[in-house]
């Protein structure tokens, strides 16, 4: 069985008026099935309001399903007693780097999670060291988070999750507020953790170029999964991607245009090198 198994997952937001009567119901997650195997790097694409962040919050038991079930490492998120162990096993990194760092010194922030789950002091230090080294922020351990760049802050946030030794990390639009350097830094870190430490990664983003190296991609729109497959399968459907207003990388777009103009180029071009090769054949 997979590490994350969602079956018919539904989440509805109730909007209430001043008397508490339900004014309207908005279905943010609409009958989603999801299956993630341990060690995979999964991406969920979609623009704002597509329900991808609501889905992410379910995996961490920050939100509970209105209907359907969600199992994280075999544990049902709707059972209150599972809450802490689910949050420990499925760590979460959020969009705004400033609003998720709790302490005023990098190492103290990374130690916050282990403190909460009652790890003995000596082991906290070992975990903090390991976690900071795994994201390449060990030299900054005594710095104030305020003096770090956006990408560095996000890496600290990732270390904060790593220190809880999770099986899986959910990154909820971790790059949306970063500059291009910071974005590359964070995505590279996520891939390294996936390859070297075997951590399952679920990357939620609206930047298509960030999902190129994923094992599997889901595309969400209006709460439902509308496309899924390997990056190549997804990227070969340029028209569908455009319909969902996703940001198709320039080379993929160009390859598609050229193929439509009658050139012999395979579908699903992901990189510049692939297009060059196809053109030079």
């Amino acid at each position, binding site marked *: 069985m997979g590490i994350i198994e969602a079956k018919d997952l539904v989440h509805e937001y109730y909007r209430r008026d001043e008397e508490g009567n339900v004014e309207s119901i908005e279905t943010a997650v609409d009958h989603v099935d999801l299956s993630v195997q341990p060690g995979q790097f999964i991406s969920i694409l979609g623009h704002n309001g597509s329900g991808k962040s609501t889905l992410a919050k379910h995996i961490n038991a920050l939100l509970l399903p209105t209907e359907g079930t969600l199992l994280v490492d075999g544990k049902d998120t709707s059972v209150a007693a599972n809450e802490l162990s689910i949050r420990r096993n499925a760590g979460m990194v959020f969009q705004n780097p400033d609003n998720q760092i709790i302490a005023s010194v990098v190492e103290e922030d990374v130690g916050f999670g282990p403190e909460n789950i009652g790890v003995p002091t000596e082991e906290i230090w070992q975990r903090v060291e390991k976690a900071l080294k795994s994201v390449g922020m060990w030299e900054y351990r005594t710095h104030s988070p305020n003096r770090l760049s956006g990408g560095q802050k996000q890496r600290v946030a990732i270390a904060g999750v790593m220190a809880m030794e999770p099986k899986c990390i959910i990154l909820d639009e971790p790059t949306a507020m970063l500059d291009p350097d910071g974005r590359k830094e964070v995505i590279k870190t996520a891939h390294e953790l996936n390859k070297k430490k075997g951590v399952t990664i679920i990357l939620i983003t609206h930047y298509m170029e960030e999902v190129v190296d994923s094992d599997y991609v889901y595309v969400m729109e209006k709460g439902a999964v509308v496309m899924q497959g390997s990056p190549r399968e997804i990227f070969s459907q340029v028209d569908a991607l455009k319909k969902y207003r996703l*940001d198709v990388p320039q080379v993929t777009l160009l390859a598609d245009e050229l193929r439509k103009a009658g050139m012999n180029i395979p579908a699903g071009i992901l990189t*510049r090198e692939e297009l060059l090769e196809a*053109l030079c054949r």
Partner: protein
Amino acid sequence: MSLILDHVSYTYSIGSGYEVKALNDVNLKINDGEFIGIIGHTGSGKSTLVQHLNGLIQATSGSIYYNGADIYDKDYDRKELRTQVGMVFQYPEHQLFETTVFEDVKYGPKNQGLDDKKATLRAYEALRKVKFPEENYDASPFELSGGQKRRAAIAGVIAMKPAVLILDEPTAGLDPKGRDEILGLIKEMHDKSGITIILVSHSMEDVANYVERIIVMEKGAPLFDGTPREVFANYKKLEEIGLAAPQVTYLMHDLQKKGYPVDPQVTTVEEARQEILRVLGKK
């Protein structure tokens, strides 16, 4: 009608021991009606540069002339300058404060001393220009979606009818859909009303699709200044300073290296398509 920067330098935290030279002897002329992109990575001085243009930051040395007048002259009305050179900050929706969108947009015109009727007209005009949905004019700005908040905030600046509009990372935090809409809007404003637009961004590909002139900032001074084609021709140097040219520019250079007679100075997908079909299409 223009903005001229003459040997402008700016140093942060003078006398504190850790001085930072944010701008280093900048000389620049911005002509009326231009559509300019200012690119540079975080800390290159691009945001500091544009905050000089409307007098929010005062240069440590050098002078700035707006329409021939020295803005550091002691008789110069700098409050008036700030309405002439409008500035939309990063995440502008964070400045919204009124009870309704409409009232919020009126704030700028009212500060200009316009009466309520005129301010109302200005607000209508500005909200229409940013294609803000009419049914939300009286909504609280805090209940809107991210994209709509951004539009309302931009309307709040253009309601002052600036002759120059500066936008600092206007698409930060938006998804591709929201980004295309905002950039399209800005282009439309430039094309229709002919105002000068200065777009600060760190996305080369965004900028290449819209602007006529690119200024690349590096270490507090312009490194390149020219049309997108001219600037991206230096793609090697751009890469060294942590900026990248659009993907298609790289592809065209690669093709050229393989011996195909393509024009490497291509910056958009459409140009690349035509160029490749011209040279390779017959295959």
